[in-house]
């Protein structure tokens, strides 16, 4: 029993073009509070599916296993309830919302979460002050709050907008799904600093990445290797460096 995030024997499948495809095949993962864990693994191993299942995407059918968050049955909750409970997913490909103003979107989200957490809603002035400060800390251009959500944003701007949302929603558990992909070194550092600012004894993160580079800035507590829908290996930070140098082949061969 964990007091924070506990995933046990999680299996999930998706119905793709009429064919059912099993993607998660028994994921076991325990993340204590205050830690940053990393999942690495070859493409198609189920990393993004795990993040979607934890965030509550309906396309996936959970066929076995459990996931609890703060002792609650995560899988029984609606996506918005999971967000209110403190879970945040930074999307690998953030979604564009034409016609939806970014500041309005952020304020609606923040106030929805505050409402659900029993906190007072923020008025427009207080919210904008907070949002502008958070955006500035991420080196985002001020006009990004006025634009439509992610519409016409560059890849790097979209990723920063994800971190901005995370900053404002104040989750206790964040999943970052390849938030580093497509970022240059400066952007990578800014994003990592954004995550580091949230680090606290009550905040944990699950970082999905292919690259050691992000981990230079975002020092992890633990590394997990995922393959064929399962966690096949876990270790300390040195495991990431080893994978960066040697690739996955060796580890996959060992468990095969």
């Amino acid at each position, binding site marked *: 029993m964990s007091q924070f995030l506990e995933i046990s024997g999680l299996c999930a499948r998706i119905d793709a073009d009429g064919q059912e495809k099993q993607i998660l095949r028994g994921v076991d993962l325990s993340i204590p509070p205050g830690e940053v864990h990393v999942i690495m693994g070859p493409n198609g191993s189920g990393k993004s599916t795990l993040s979607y299942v934890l965030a509550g995407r309906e396309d996936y059918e959970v066929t076995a296993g459990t996931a609890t968050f703060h002792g609650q049955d995560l899988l029984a909750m609606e996506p918005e309830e999971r967000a209110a409970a403190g879970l945040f997913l930074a999307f690998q490909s953030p979604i564009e919302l034409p016609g939806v103003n970014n500041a309005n979107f952020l304020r*609606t989200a923040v106030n*929805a979460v505050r409402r659900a957490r029993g906190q007072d809603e923020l008025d427009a002035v207080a919210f904008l002050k907070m949002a502008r400060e958070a955006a500035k800390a991420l080196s985002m251009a001020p006009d990004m709050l006025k634009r439509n959500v992610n519409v016409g944003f560059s890849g790097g701007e979209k990723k920063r907008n994800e971190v901005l949302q995370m900053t404002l929603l104040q989750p206790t558990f964040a999943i970052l799904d390849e938030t580093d992909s497509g970022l240059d070194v400066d952007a990578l550092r800014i994003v990592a600093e954004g995550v580091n600012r949230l680090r606290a004894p009550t905040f944990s993160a699950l970082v999905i990445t292919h690259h050691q580079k992000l981990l230079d800035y975002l020092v992890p507590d633990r590394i997990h290797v995922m393959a064929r829908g399962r966690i096949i290996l876990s270790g300390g930070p040195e495991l990431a460096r080893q994978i960066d140098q040697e690739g996955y082949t060796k580890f996959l061969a060992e468990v095969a």
Partner: protein
Amino acid sequence: MNALSKDMSGPLALFANRLNTLAGPERQAAAGALARTGLPDRKSEAWHYTALRALGKQDYAAPPAQVDDGAVRTLLDGVLCAHPAMAGLPRVVFVNGRHAPAFSALPDDVDLAFFAQAPRFGLQAAPDRDPLVALNTALAEDGLYVRVPAGVDGGHVMLVSLGVAGAEPVSFHPRHTVVVEKEAHLRLICVQAGQGAYFHNPVTDIVVEDGATLEHVTVQTEAAQAISLGTLYAHVGHQSVYDSFVLGLGGQLARHEVHARLGATRGVVHVNGAQRLAGQQVGDITSVITHVASDCTSRQTVRNVLDGHARGVFQGKVLVERIAQKTDGYQMNQALLLSPDAEIDAKPELEIYADDVRCSHGATVGALDDDQLFYLRSRGIPEHEARQILIDAFLDEAIALVTDATAQTFCRAVLAARFAGKGDVA
């Protein structure tokens, strides 16, 4: 002599008592045309998607001489309160098709007159081709005549049409004329609202002279039981702009029909719109844009959000005559269906006789996007609110086409008030 005595059967019988007491050659001719054609049914191509059966279910009396002022005041307040800027705008208020001076606040910089005192039928309307225009011509009692003198910026004018019906259904058939003279400018905001069962059948004759601009926004929030069938003719001169937008929300059956004619070079016509319907509502946006001169531009973007058993109809015809070279035409109709029983009937038509033109059209139909919904919900926004945000955003991209900032804000406010508490993020 009475041209109608021969055939007053069928739907026309609903208006029989009034059609039998007509004076003047225009009314007589229109009544005669109406008697020959009857009201259109679905065999008529122009009315294939919109049946007038609902019209035939009840008799329509002429509106009573006296109307409850309290009811009018409540309706007018509802219109003006939607947005603080509206109460300060000059307005001409019609109640059941008759000018109501007590509720109007007439503008200064434009020339006003009323049909009741000096009937003007205009030159563009075609009673012999359109039975609803014939019905209007035969029964019109009053209407606004507004003229902006050459070179004058007429500012804003609101034309508020209120229907107030009691136990007995009434019909009214106002006849409006708008003339924007050379190099003049007018921002016209038409608002339709009401209570009870009534049939509103306005005809509007618009002339935008050379170099002039008319920004024209219609906000249709008719009563739930109302039938609203409006026909509008616009003649657009050399280098002049007719920029129109209709927001269709109310009525059990509503049709906004625009005939715009680009009669001289470098004219610009926009016939944009949005409708949001639910229940059993039928909303029809029909247009015929005719290019008869070169180097003109026409634009049409219409967005529909349809819930319940609602049905949207879009008929858009762009006719480019042989002489109208270098025409630039664009037409797009998009629909968001929120329920499996909602329906959109879209008939875009290009009819082009010139050989050097750029014209395109398209149509899309879809449901709310699952990825967008999940994205919003993953940020803690409850599902119903997330849906509302996406619906608003879809409509807002059409409302953003309204160039007059006051009218644009008004459209947003009307939508927000009507769908309050359902995820407005403003």
